[in-house]
């Protein structure tokens, strides 16, 4: 197996799923974001979003904090250190497989 092909099979399958990749990318730029923000930006359904967020939480990539804003439940999500590391690794692997425009950040 060539280096590029082995990188392809090594891709993190938790992050590689398009909806979860979008969620992780959104969360990577902020400290925390709530359910409504992720819902609006991802345009997923509430159920679908919940499932993907739970999957990321199970993998240890997310932490969840539940609270109330007045009488309304408020759930905030934060990418963990291992989540950030996994996202960075994923982007590097992607770059090595498909070398293109250099990342600016």
């Amino acid at each position, binding site marked *: 197996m060539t280096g590029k092909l082995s990188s392809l099979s090594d891709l993190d399958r938790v992050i590689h799923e398009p909806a979860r*990749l979008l969620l992780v990318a959104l969360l990577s730029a*902020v*400290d925390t974001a*709530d359910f*409504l*923000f992720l*819902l609006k930006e991802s345009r997923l359904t509430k159920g679908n979003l919940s499932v993907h967020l739970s999957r990321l939480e199970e993998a240890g990539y997310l932490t969840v904090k539940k609270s109330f804003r007045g009488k309304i439940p408020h759930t905030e999500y934060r990418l963990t250190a291992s989540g950030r590391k996994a996202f960075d690794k994923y*982007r590097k692997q992607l770059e090595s497989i498909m070398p293109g*425009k250099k990342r*600016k950040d």
Partner: protein
Amino acid sequence: MEQQIDAAVKRGRAYWFADGFSELILGAFFLLLGSAVLLRVWAGQGAFLEGFATTAIDFAVLKGVALLAAFLAIWWLKDRFTYPRTGYVRGKSVPPLVLLTVIRNLILIALLPVLGLISGLLFVPQTRAVLAYLPAGLPVAIGALWGALAYFGGEWLGLRRFRLLGWLMLLAGAAVGLWQISYGLSELPAEVLQWSILDPLPDALQYPLDEWFIRMLTGMGILTLATGAGFAVTGAMTFFRYRKENPAPYREES
């Protein structure tokens, strides 16, 4: 694919500007500051030396109060308007040590040339020949600096309107500079090169320096107003688009 990931990362970063409030408040801040500068000029309080210290102190106080008010206004507006519509996002926190280092470096970068120029002007009289160019040169330099900040900030955030604002600031600075040049450069008498800062200001220098100072304030006031107007326009357009795309969420009355 990398571009799509980049776009998603930038969406998170740019959320602070999604509703237009930050630009509207920033625009109001610049408009207030520019108006205050021009009012001071029209009120005839732009005299050099007598007016310099009070101008600097007044504007420092005005900037401090206005920045605090702006921060509180943005926080209040977002809490009531933006978060119920499109959600709450907390920006990445910066460790205090990193923040202090960044602030120190910014102050050093911004202040060193200014302090160098002021020291040169005060203690090395020959450098005062450069004064004649300042009413034209300063707005060009400040417009280019603000323009570069807006342009590259827009690149980082993925906001095209900030790139346009960057060009606007650059062009506004250049336009003010050209306008000042079309008036003719300030004619400062030769005595300005011999005058020591420790001596009282000679009468022959009073009027030319006053005029020079007023021209500087006028140029900077116009540039500040143009910048404020730019921010206000893009802020208003962003706000109306945001409001249209994100109607008020339904709330059951109790």
